[in-house]
């Protein structure tokens, strides 16, 4: 039995036994190589599920949909390791109860599917610990170092050129499981913090705010990068911020569902070399 068949069988069992009321997984997308979110409530529909290397979206954002978890029933969800970290963060930020989530974990290693054992958030803690130790994608790291080697003027020009492409469609916000605010700061007009016109100034501010709000929360699922219609390297900036919280506070986001959010906690001996 293929890995996909095993997953379909497990999903069907979860639904048939009544353990979960719904399964959030992947179904066929608009082209053969794409997958889109699929929501099934009946064991008969399990055959519609796809589990393969093309399943790249982080589905955890659907868990905070209004009303989904309010009946206290369980929900099954297909998640890659990044998605499991997202669930941990959402739980740590009191957005959901991890006991209500049945995780159907899978991983994609070197382009091929690998099964993950476990169903509760705690079952994956050793996996997440190894992720913390081995975090690096050399290709992106080289670009980050190249940017850091520039003068501030060059860096500013680099990002100005990137952000000037932004059309403020907010797809990056929409796709992000961490952007669950009912009212985003850019939607506020009293006070209006961020210019809403499509000028570079407002784009610059929006992208800075977005990156700041994801600092120490982003799990680098790459959703924003894939969603951006003008290909701004959003992941690069998120990755740099993740590195910063790791270096400064030894914080790796989504380690556990009890981990304190990095910007809502402190240590008395936090580094402060830059303060006069």
């Amino acid at each position: 039995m293929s890995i996909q068949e095993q997953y379909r069988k497990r999903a069907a069992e979860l639904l048939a036994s009544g353990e979960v009321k719904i399964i959030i997984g992947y179904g066929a997308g608009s082209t053969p190589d794409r997958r889109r979110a699929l929501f099934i409530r009946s064991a008969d529909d399990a055959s519609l599920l796809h589990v393969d290397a093309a399943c790249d979206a982080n589905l955890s954002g659907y868990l905070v949909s209004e009303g989904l978890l309010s009946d206290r029933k369980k929900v099954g969800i297909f998640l890659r390791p990044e998605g499991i970290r997202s669930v941990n963060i959402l739980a740590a930020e009191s957005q959901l109860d991890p006991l209500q989530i049945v995780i159907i974990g899978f991983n994609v290693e070197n382009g091929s599917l690998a099964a993950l054992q476990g169903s509760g958030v705690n079952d994956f803690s050793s996996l997440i610990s190894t992720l913390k130790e081995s975090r690096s994608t050399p290709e992106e790291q080289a670009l980050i170092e190249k940017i850091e080697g520039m003068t501030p003027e060059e860096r500013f020009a680099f990002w100005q050129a990137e952000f000037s492409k932004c059309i403020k469609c907010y797809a990056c916000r929409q796709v992000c499981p961490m952007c669950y605010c009912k009212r985003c700061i850019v939607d506020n007009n009293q006070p209006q913090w961020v210019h809403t016109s499509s000028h570079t100034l407002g784009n610059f501010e929006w992208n800075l705010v977005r990156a700041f709000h994801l600092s120490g929360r982003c799990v680098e699922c790459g959703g924003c990068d894939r969603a951006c219609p003008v290909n701004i390297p959003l992941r690069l900036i998120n990755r740099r911020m993740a590195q910063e919280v790791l270096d400064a506070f030894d914080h790796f986001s989504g380690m556990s569902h009890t981990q304190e959010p990095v910007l809502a906690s402190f240590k008395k001996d936090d580094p402060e070399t830059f303060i006069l």
Partner: protein
Amino acid sequence: MSEPFEPKIVAFVCTYCTYAGADLAGTSRLKYPPNIRMVRLPCTGRISPMFILKALQKGADGVLVSGCHPGDCHFTHGNYHARRRWTVFRALLNFTGIPLERIRFSWISAAEGVKFAELISSLTEDIRKLGPFDQYKAMIHETETPVSL
């Protein structure tokens, strides 16, 4: 003849320490440059990174954020939270090319009037040397020019 460049500096300060320190500098008749615009807030923990962006958006050449020394916060730990936030935000500003010489952070207590006056003097001099923040001002200018189709 154009006038010599006078930097605009916005200081976000907490009312219990740095504002009182500035007050002490004043009552002690200490001299410091008038380039600073102070915004008094209840605590450094109240200082959102948005304030810094707003100051730049409104044409500031430099920003100072200052509050109580660690352990001295009136609200016991507002400045510890602020310190973490600044560490992260400062790294973000650096990565996106906003020169860190323009965004400064300090701890100034109510007793440190001299430190306040000296810091403002040196900060003003530093930013005067850097000149106006032209790259940011070009972006502001773009929003003010009428669109030509």
